[in-house]
């Protein structure tokens, strides 16, 4: 039994497999969200729906079948995992963090470190560097065949996503200089026209041969060619990245215009 999904070089079948490491991690995320919901004192409140969505998406992204398919068969599913863990899950979890909890986090022992890591420029650099490194073919081909390596990539995406969204979605620590136009620029550079994402998309779409040996040589899945799989992964990355950025830009813009009005 595997504790985390990884490349196994066996033909895909639809037989369910347990991944206890994934369950533990999802429980950990859920527990952390529950604890944070109670942070800051006051009356106990129900869990924010976005928090529930975040925990649910974490489970979907990591457990069978998405986790297993992404770890060992299809680059496009691996990309879906990245988009979930690196973009959607952190946004949902942070979006569900109540202001009292944000203050409690900022004032906690790790608050100083969180404040440093999530300064916009630092966060932008960290997010892009992690995204780049975790998508480099030698690193993917090296890490994905081992459970620890596969877990490291998944957790790095999760951490990178939290770092990226933190300055946008939290109000504590306060960042008075991070005004709406800068927030919009942050989203444009980080997601919509991210050089890293654009580069990866370009390589996956236009490289002469499949980028990742692991997915090229994985047991074939339902008639999909490796080329089609890589192309779908590229389209998913560019479309989802742009879409999430567009939604973020619109939200910031309309909130800003309301404030000015």
């Amino acid at each position, binding site marked *: 039994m595997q504790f985390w999904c990884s490349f196994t*070089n066996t*033909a895909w079948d639809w037989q369910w497999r347990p991944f206890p490491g994934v369950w533990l991690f999802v429980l950990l995320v859920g527990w952390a969200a529950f604890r944070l919901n109670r942070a800051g004192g006051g009356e106990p409140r129900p869990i924010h729906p976005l928090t529930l969505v975040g925990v649910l998406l974490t489970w979907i992204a990591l457990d069978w079948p998405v986790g297993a398919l992404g770890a060992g068969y299809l680059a496009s599913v691996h990309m879906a995992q990245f988009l979930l863990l690196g973009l959607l899950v952190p946004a949902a979890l942070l979006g569900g963090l109540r202001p009292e909890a944000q203050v409690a986090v900022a004032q906690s022992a790790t608050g100083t470190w969180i404040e440093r890591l999530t300064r916009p420029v630092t966060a*932008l*650099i960290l997010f892009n*560097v992690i995204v780049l490194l975790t998508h*480099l*073919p030698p690193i993917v081909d090296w890490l994905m065949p081992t459970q620890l390596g596969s877990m490291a990539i998944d957790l790095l995406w999760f951490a990178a996503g939290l770092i990226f969204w933190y300055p946008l979605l939290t109000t504590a620590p306060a960042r008075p200089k991070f005004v709406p136009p800068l927030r919009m620029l942050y989203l444009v550079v980080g997601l919509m026209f991210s*050089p890293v994402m654009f580069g990866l998309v370009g390589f996956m779409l236009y490289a002469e041969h*499949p*980028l990742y040996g692991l997915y090229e040589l994985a047991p074939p899945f339902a008639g999909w060619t490796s080329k089609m799989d890589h192309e779908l992964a590229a389209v998913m990355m560019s479309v989802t990245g742009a879409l999430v950025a567009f939604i973020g830009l619109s939200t910031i813009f309309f909130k800003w215009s309301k404030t000015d009005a």
Partner: protein
Amino acid sequence: MRRLSALLVPAMMALAACRGEAPRDEALFRGVYVSPPIEKPDFTFTDFNGQPFSFRLKTVGKVALLFFGYTHCPDVCPLHAANVAAVLKQMPFEEREKIQFIFVTTDPERDTPERLKAWLGAFDRDFIGLAASPDELARVQRELRIATARKEFLPGADSSAYLVGHAAQVFAFGLDGFARTEYPMGVRQEDWAKDLPRLARGELPPEPSAALPGKDIQLVPSTVEVAGPAIRIEVAVMAAPPATSEASVYLVLTNAGAEDTLVGVSSPEAGGAMVHVTESSGGQQVMRMRDRVPIGKGATVSFLPGAMHVMLTDLTRKPAAGESFPLRLQFARAGEFAIAPLVVPYAELDSHLGARR
């Protein structure tokens, strides 16, 4: 932002340059060198149109890629077919026309001509599928020095849902009628893309001896004189094989006594057993057979992935991870050792062989 671009631009350049492999000697072919080269076998099988197909006559003036597989194969066969097809599609017509992929079914019961044609046609309409009698098939496989394909029944499954253990390499017969390279499972499209145009142009892969100087087995001298049994098996593990056609065993042997030599390997549960050495130079790999492996006094000899290993072929069963598999080692002085290497997943070999890698 300048900091960001200073960091990201070199990184993207690294992505462009980096495809996950060591620098290669571009003069060498990407396939595994076959030594000595194998002459094109002389056989006439039946193609998927019901017509006789003489391998030698029909492939004169062409590079013949010969592969033995079956259409129900879950991994190796569709991968090879898909990768060759993808590369052929990108080649200029003049070169592509000189390359013929020939798929000989090892499962004629289920691979009807219609199925064979449809399956191969899904990859490339120019691929040719052949079928033969079991005896003829076995003769050609022996001639090519590969394991004879055999059925593997899955426990508890329907008797018609069997797998077929078969050789996993594609033989590339050049324009001169000899196979000097073969392409095992793990060869990527970019490897095919490097070699196929060269083969189509009539380039011949160099003889391994000329390209790659022979390398002696590495003996690591021990600093301690040990009394007791002369030969000790420190580690013995088998990589869990995907099929019964072949499996590799890795060992670490120490010799505390006088100089000895490993002169034979065998297994009651394998049709063939031999010591292979994989040698590499500039990214090119060549596999050679070793009849004798000397083990010096006080020396340690390691059989490790990517280097020397015991190759077993035609296994009577497919051992699963956690089981053991019988193996006999015959030494000139110390005599015969019967051992039972533990079968482990390939990904876990490192942890068993540890620092010896």
